[in-house]
């Protein structure tokens, strides 16, 4: 797969985001990766049930996608260049023409009332001038182009508000030129992406990969006190069967109290708890499932 067709993972401050809707769909359909939508919706900012772009990925998901050659890492900070003078100028022109074209065309109202007397026309003119003056004094941003003012002949209504378009994706800007890394090694050398760094992080990546290879979808496990929720298929279609925790290395110790906590929580929520351990030398993962016995 050439670089252009690979999914772009935009890395900012050590976190990878996906801004393209097509890529998000591809991640789910072709690569069994769901991620988490984290964008608030502008008109309903005080809720987090419905979220929008961007999609945020877990570090284990990023590592898996890069290792499989399905995605590349983009250095967001370095990719946003300083715009040149001419780029800025043409951008400003674009914004202006967008604003003007969004103002609805003025209606010549005198055409509809041919029977207005001189007196009435005079009164109407005064009324329009007053309204224009009030609009200019108000705090809502309005802009009226010079030409429009001249053309009104002061007898027409003035619509002065216009929409401002905020582009969602940086790729729409001419000064955005992506700096791309195709391998974890090159991204690590550049200081952009250093996960996995510790032994436990490597173990997490290995367990994640092993579960993924078996066809499971993984979600964030914080709501159930584990590392991941493990679904037998797409989370939109299935409930998760397991809450997984990664053990081993310096984290090999499991207290019986943990067994009780994991087992009880799992059983109360119709899940089992999955204890996972990566055996590095053999590169295999060992699993044990815990559930409450139902007696005692």
């Amino acid at each position, binding site marked *: 797969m050439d670089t252009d067709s690979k999914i772009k993972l935009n890395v900012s401050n050590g976190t990878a985001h996906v801004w393209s809707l097509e890529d998000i769909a591809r991640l789910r359909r072709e690569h069994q990766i769901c991620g988490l939508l984290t964008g608030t919706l502008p008109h309903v900012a005080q809720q987090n049930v419905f979220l929008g772009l961007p999609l945020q990925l877990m570090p284990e998901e990023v590592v898996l996608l890069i290792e499989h050659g399905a995605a590349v890492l983009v250095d967001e900070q370095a990719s946003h260049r300083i715009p040149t003078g001419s780029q800025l100028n043409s951008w400003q022109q674009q914004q202006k023409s967008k604003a003007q074209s969004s103002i609805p065309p003025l209606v010549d109202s005198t055409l509809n009332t041919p029977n207005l007397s001189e007196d009435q026309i005079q009164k109407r003119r005064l009324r329009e001038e007053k309204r224009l003056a009030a609009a200019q004094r108000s705090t809502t941003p309005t802009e009226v182009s010079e030409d429009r003012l001249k053309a009104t002949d002061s007898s027409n209504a003035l619509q002065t508000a216009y929409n401002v378009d905020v582009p969602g994706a940086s790729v729409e800007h001419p000064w955005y030129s992506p700096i791309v890394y195709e391998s974890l090694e090159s991204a690590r050398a550049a200081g952009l992406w250093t996960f996995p760094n510790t032994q436990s992080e490597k173990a997490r990546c290995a367990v994640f990969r092993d579960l993924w290879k078996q066809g499971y979808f993984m979600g964030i496990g914080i709501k159930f006190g584990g590392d991941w929720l493990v679904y037998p298929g797409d989370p939109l279609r299935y409930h998760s069967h397991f809450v997984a925790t990664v053990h081993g290395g310096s984290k090999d110790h499991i207290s*019986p109290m943990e067994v009780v906590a994991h087992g009880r929580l799992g059983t109360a929520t119709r899940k089992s708890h999955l204890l996972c351990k990566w055996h590095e030398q053999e590169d295999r993962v060992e699993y044990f499932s815990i559930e409450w016995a139902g007696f005692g």
Partner: protein
Amino acid sequence: MEGHVSYPILAPVIKKYPATAGPLFQTYNDLSLAQRWESLEVIDLSNALRGGFRGRRPGTTESSVVVPCFLTESLSMSWISSVFQDLPDVKDFYLAICTEDSSVVYYRMSKGIVKPPM
């Protein structure tokens, strides 16, 4: 403990693994008297360094394995693995966690990824 009616059955294993005598004793009494398990026999789990039990849970025909431990013990993935090594044909066992107030709680440990029952 030595004067208790259960002691003779447990004595050989207690002598071999004195450190886990407490949970062994507590679990045996709970299984036989409170949980009413049948055909209880003591087994030796040398890798897990303790004794355990095989028996039938009331209402079942298959026998199950119970491995006792104390709440304050430090278990590990390796330890769970060693129990399964002691029991080659067994797919799951009950971990009996014993506490100082003489409560025993049981959790099933299965080998591999085992879905929860419906």
